[in-house]
């Protein structure tokens, strides 16, 4: 379903993704693990037509997302790592806008929005502006929105960041359910090894832009002689802590906070 060959992304001198190759079969849950700044999000951006690769080849359901952008976008849905909601609209309006963009038919739209907002316990707040929501509520809304339509491929970029265990549980239960009933292919990244261990069929570990190991959780543990996936991960990527530099987006958020206390 997803095929990646010798994918490279360079920003100036910096190589964010360095010659990676992997395949995700249809109906598979594939976890992409790596420390901060390893190239996970850059890879997802290239897979989802937000970034052009420097070189290499990608296929999504047989389509090259660099050439057939629009067709490729019809095959997937994505939950982003960082916020992507419209804070000046209500929770319900955000859901509705997404449903229209993703061509969820008018008949099922209202019903599905209600169902998802209830499941993620946002139904009572549906008519409140997103800018009044707490961080956790925003995350929940992003996730609820991501499940509004059922794509062939679902990208989840650190979906559980900042979520409480209840919501995390809801999320993974839903993902597994989709995978089993709709045969949805899932490509996810996370920092929580227990989650990857629990839901992923196969795992790839990426560090400094390159894939250092891939296989089932069992294979990775055996390969490194570790008892847990976390130990295997540390054995493969080392224990030094990585820093990500602040992006212009972070700086803008600072400025925005200064200028408009409402946001």
């Amino acid at each position, binding site marked *: 379903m997803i095929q990646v060959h010798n994918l490279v992304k360079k920003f100036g001198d910096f190589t964010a993704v360095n010659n990676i190759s992997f395949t995700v079969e249809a109906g598979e849950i594939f976890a992409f693990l790596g420390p901060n700044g390893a190239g996970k999000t850059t890879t997802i*951006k290239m897979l989802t037509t937000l*970034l052009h690769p420097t070189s290499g080849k990608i296929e999504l359901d047989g389509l090259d997302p660099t050439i057939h952008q629009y067709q490729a976008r019809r095959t997937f849905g994505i939950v982003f790592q960082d916020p992507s909601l419209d804070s000046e609209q209500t929770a319900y309006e955000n859901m509705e806008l997404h449903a229209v*963009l993703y061509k969820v038919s008018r008949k099922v739209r209202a019903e599905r929005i209600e169902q998802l907002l209830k499941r993620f316990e946002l139904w009572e707040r549906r008519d409140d502006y997103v800018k009044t929501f707490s961080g956790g509520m925003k995350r929940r809304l992003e996730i609820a929105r991501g499940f509004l339509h059922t794509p062939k491929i679902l990208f989840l970029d650190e979906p559980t960041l900042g979520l409480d265990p209840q919501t995390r549980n809801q999320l993974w239960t839903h993902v597994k359910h989709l995978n089993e009933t709709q045969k949805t292919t899932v490509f996810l990244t996370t920092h929580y090894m227990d989650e990857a261990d629990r839901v992923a069929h196969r795992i790839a570990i990426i560090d400094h832009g390159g894939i250092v190991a891939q296989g089932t959780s069992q294979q990775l543990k055996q390969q490194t002689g570790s008892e847990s996936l976390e130990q295997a991960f540390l054995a493969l990527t080392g224990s030094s802590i990585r820093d990500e530099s602040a992006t212009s987006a972070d700086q803008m958020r600072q400025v925005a906070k200064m200028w408009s206390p409402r946001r």
Partner: protein
Amino acid sequence: MSAIYILWLRELKRYVRSRAQIVASLGQPLLYLLVLGFGLGPVFQKAGNGSYLQFVAPGVISMTILFSATFSGIAMLWDRQFGFLKETLVAPVPRIEVMIGRTLGGATVALIQGTLILIACLLAGFRPAHLSLFPLAFLMMGLIAIVFAALGTAFGSILQDMQGFQLIMNFMVLPIFFLSGALFPLANLPRPLAIITRLDPLTYGVDALRGVLINASHFGFALDTSLLCAIAMAFLALGGYLFSRIQL
């Protein structure tokens, strides 16, 4: 089509909901209208050009539309930084539809702002020559709005941060306003200024609006309208192209 509609609607909702911003954005044009309109009135009259308020009103309306429309396009910067832009860029909708929805939304908001200022002009004593040409005036205002909303989208597509925004405002939008003949007559200008004003798209917008509202067009209605239409097409194409190439 429904994607265009929902994104257009979003721009409108944002406008209606930010009342403080509506009031704030009307302040500057009102200053120009009242202070210049009445302040320069006597001099203008003495020079034999008639009422300055009559003359400057179409200019101030055009200015309101220019600022509002360009700003709505550049406001894409916020959507980029706060993430909502991503949501629309990965959606299974041709990017040109996303761009058109946003641009028409911005143009509609600008048209509303322009209409509010037109009403303010009427209250201040502005009297259009032919009331029957009012619908045509709205058409011209709409055309100006589309031209600059498309230009704003083009800028918004390439800008990455606030510094760029300041640059565009100071070196593009303000000169477009000042060089458009919104504040002064185009006749008998020094040659360099005459040439520059003719390169400014807003010149033809202001002139068309003057033609319709106070029956005083410099270039003629046909030339103004056809040029504005051509510029609108060109800017829409440019905006669409740059928007479709956005990478995040």
